[in-house]
């Protein structure tokens, strides 16, 4: 299994998902070999074997003048055996991949320890050479070295494909697709790509051409595709032209947590509406602000918390100021885990107005902290959580009405909390792992249900 993130080094839902999923798969008696770019040494033990790509020697290195070239060569990759000397790319900044150069904003996550992208470094050589090949010191994360690392990682994958025994290749998101393709070409084993997010979700129509191309390549090469929601499946069909029967929807689970009681702290008054997440286009922060303005016409005492950061933050702050709502808005920036718990404890209703959310685990974390939630219909989580108010992200009238209703009608808030709290126990990684187990079996024994 190839995954770019694994706890504790996670920056988004991806790492959490990889952890939850592998843990549940091990309970299903699946042997999991999980390859990460870099191990920190304090990963939680979940029964799967963790391998750091940084410790696998690469015997064949392709010189890379440009990432494009790199990619083209990669496509025709064959193992040529022995060790060659190498040339190292200096920087990727020549390529117009704006969003990739802003990894701090676009891929950081609000609720876990954060991998801050390191400053751009000129890297002139591989670090060490060993008997098994040269070792590449992966940084992981999503810094400016990302594309380079993605292809280095693919080279590691081909080493692993030769040395390890396995039945199915399972790759999580585009960073690992080249690796999966390399492993498939060398081993002939079936390949699953697991789509946690697409470039379309991350960047709307302004996505990176290169990332999109890598995604296409992976999706085409895959024997089966796993999407985390119907919503994502729909995007894969419409934006990537993938046939419906190739895609299996396997909803994410949520790792059970003790529900904390709702001792609402009167930090900001009795009515607090909270937006938690990256403040980026994808998360719909401007719809939150517009709905807030409407709510304030009826409930002038409501406070709105926007916790998180992102590339939209400056314009959101300006918008709030322009609408003269600043006295009612609180921008917290990134919060640490316990700070998030404090905010949620003071929250009357959590709002996720995402424009496109492949799954969206954060509302479920709010549910675990006994907070009623309002989520957009354009999210995967709305397919599995029925005890929430649901609106279209663009419908700020409906959103403001939903907020007002939860604030005004106490029994609504209580029922939402109670029923969501019960329903969340049914959204498990065990279910997801069982589905995947079946899928593995079909692929390993060459059964296709269609």
């Amino acid at each position, binding site marked *: 299994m190839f995954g770019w993130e694994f706890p504790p080094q996670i920056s988004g839902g991806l790492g959490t998902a990889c952890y939850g999923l592998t843990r549940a798969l091990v309970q299903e008696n699946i042997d999991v070999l999980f390859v990460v770019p870099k191990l920190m040494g304090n990963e939680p033990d979940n029964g799967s074997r963790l391998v750091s790509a940084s410790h696998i020697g690469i015997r064949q290195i392709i010189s890379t003048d440009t990432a494009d070239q790199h990619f083209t060569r990669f496509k025709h990759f064959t193992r040529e055996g022995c060790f060659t000397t190498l040339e190292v790319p200096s920087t990727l900044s020549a390529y117009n991949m704006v969003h990739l150069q802003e990894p701090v904003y676009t891929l950081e996550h609000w609720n876990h320890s954060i991998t801050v992208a390191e400053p751009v470094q000129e890297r002139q050589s591989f670090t060490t050479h060993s008997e098994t090949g040269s070792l590449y010191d992966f940084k992981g994360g999503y810094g400016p070295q990302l594309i380079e690392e993605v292809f280095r990682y693919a080279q590691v994958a081909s080493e692993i494909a030769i040395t390890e025994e396995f039945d199915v290749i399972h790759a999580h998101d585009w960073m690992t697709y080249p690796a999966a393709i390399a492993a498939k070409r060398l081993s002939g084993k079936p390949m699953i790509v697991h789509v946690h997010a697409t470039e379309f979700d991350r960047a709307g129509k302004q996505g990176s051409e290169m990332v999109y191309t890598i995604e296409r390549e992976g999706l085409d090469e895959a024997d089966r595709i796993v999407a985390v929601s119907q919503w994502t499946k729909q995007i894969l069909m419409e934006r990537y032209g993938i046939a419906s029967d190739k895609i299996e929807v396997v909803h994410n689970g949520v790792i059970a947590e003790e529900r904390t009681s709702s001792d609402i702290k009167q930090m900001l008054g009795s009515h607090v509406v909270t937006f938690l997440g990256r403040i980026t286009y994808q998360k719909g922060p401007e719809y939150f602000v517009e709905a807030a303005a409407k709510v304030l016409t*009826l409930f002038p005492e409501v406070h709105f918390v926007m916790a998180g950061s992102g590339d939209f933050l400056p314009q959101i702050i300006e918008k709030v100021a322009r609408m003269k709502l600043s006295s009612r808005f609180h921008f917290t920036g990134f919060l640490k885990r316990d700070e998030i718990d404090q905010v949620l404890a003071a929250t009357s209703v959590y709002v996720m107005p995402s424009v496109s959310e492949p799954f969206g685990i954060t509302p479920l974390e709010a549910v675990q902290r006994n907070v009623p939630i309002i989520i957009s219909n354009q999210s995967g989580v709305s397919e599995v959580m029925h005890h929430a*108010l649901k609106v279209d992200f663009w419908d700020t009238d409906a959103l403001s*009405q939903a907020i*007002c*209703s939860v604030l*005004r*009608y106490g*029994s609504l808030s209580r*029922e939402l909390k109670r029923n969501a709290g019960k329903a969340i126990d049914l959204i498990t990684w065990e279910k997801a792992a069982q589905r995947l187990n079946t899928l593995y079996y079909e692929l390993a024994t060459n059964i296709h249900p269609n």
Partner: protein
Amino acid sequence: MNLQLTSTQTNSSQRLVLYFQVHQPARLNKINFFSIGSHPEYFDHALNAEIVQRVATDCYLPANRLLLQLIEKHPEIKVCFSISGVALAQFEHYVPEVLRSFQELANTGNVEFLSETNHHSLASLISADEFQIQVFEHAENIYRHFGVRPSVFRNTELIYSNTIGTQVAQMGFKGMITDGVDRVLEGRSPFQLYQHPDNAAFKLLLRNNSLSDDIAFRYRQGNTTLSAERYVNWLNHIPDSEPVVILGMDYETLGEHHKQATGIFDFLTSMLTRVVNDKKFTLSTPAEVIDHVTSGQALSIEQPISWADERKDLSAWLGNDMQRDAFDMVKSLENPVKRTANTSLIAAWRALQTSDHFYYMCTKKLNDGDVHAYFSHYPSPYEAFINYMNVMSDFVIRVKSASAQADLTEAVKQNEYERQHPQVPVWAERQSAEIRQELFVSH
């Protein structure tokens, strides 16, 4: 309260009652939170018209036509209907031909109409006064349309308890239909005629939920449908010693819940024909059962029961906080609304008591949740609650301003009364008494 019915004598002493519930709620408009206070129209007349017209085409008209034909062919066939006042009003406005076809059925004399609350409401849980007002309102409605006075009562969703039974008996009814819920029967037969524990003259007819649901919910399972032969065979296996079998279901079962293509109308035809030909059962109306069957034991029901869901209690309408909150709100308005003496406000208040509004707010999952979802036009119970509460919030404002108006009117009347009947101050009264006394003394 006397219903004229032709009595057809047969040899059989076992009676079979076929009771159909006819109801369409007055569904609410989508009321925007921000329009609270602007007094928008509460009821979605367009949606209600559309639905009642559709159900008329699929169910009411063809089913009535079929029953009429069957009764003409086999005068032994008798059925009973309970038609809510809300449904009657919708027929009157949107599909008068449905009303006419029910009148034709009424004219055969083979059809009994039951009494219920006019608004298909939960009034029996509000107050005895209000309950009675709504029952009489419905009785007037039935008399106006069909020229008959019901003598048997059925409460909304067959909700029943000893208390409700006592109230209904006091209104002059001779019996009531409720559900043969296992936990109250405690092993006793569901096929007997029971009586109220405090009033032997007040009879309880128990719907057989298993045989009724075989048609209403289990007629079609997968691709197979229940055959009339099989069903009548089940009926025929009921021992001769059991005096009465009551089948009760939504009339919409015929053609709406089960579409015509499923063969449901043929099932009904074949079933009734077989029952008539087999002569095991006498098809009867509830009033006839009460008149001819001797009741045995008293059946005491302390906690309210109903025919809904698996639990057959009030939980389908008052099972969660939202439902209780909404219901408490409408209930608490009884005195304020009545004090306004504003007829349109009182009518709206009653229409807001219709049980369906609360049913839509049910969050029970699994099998029951599916049934609730089938009957709801809201995307979720939460939206149903929000919309209802938005309506109620607006309604409360109307009630407040109307009662302020009423208080003002009252004050004006009081002033006028005082002007016309000037009050003599106490000192003046005393003075005049003293003067009188002095005069008396001096004489």
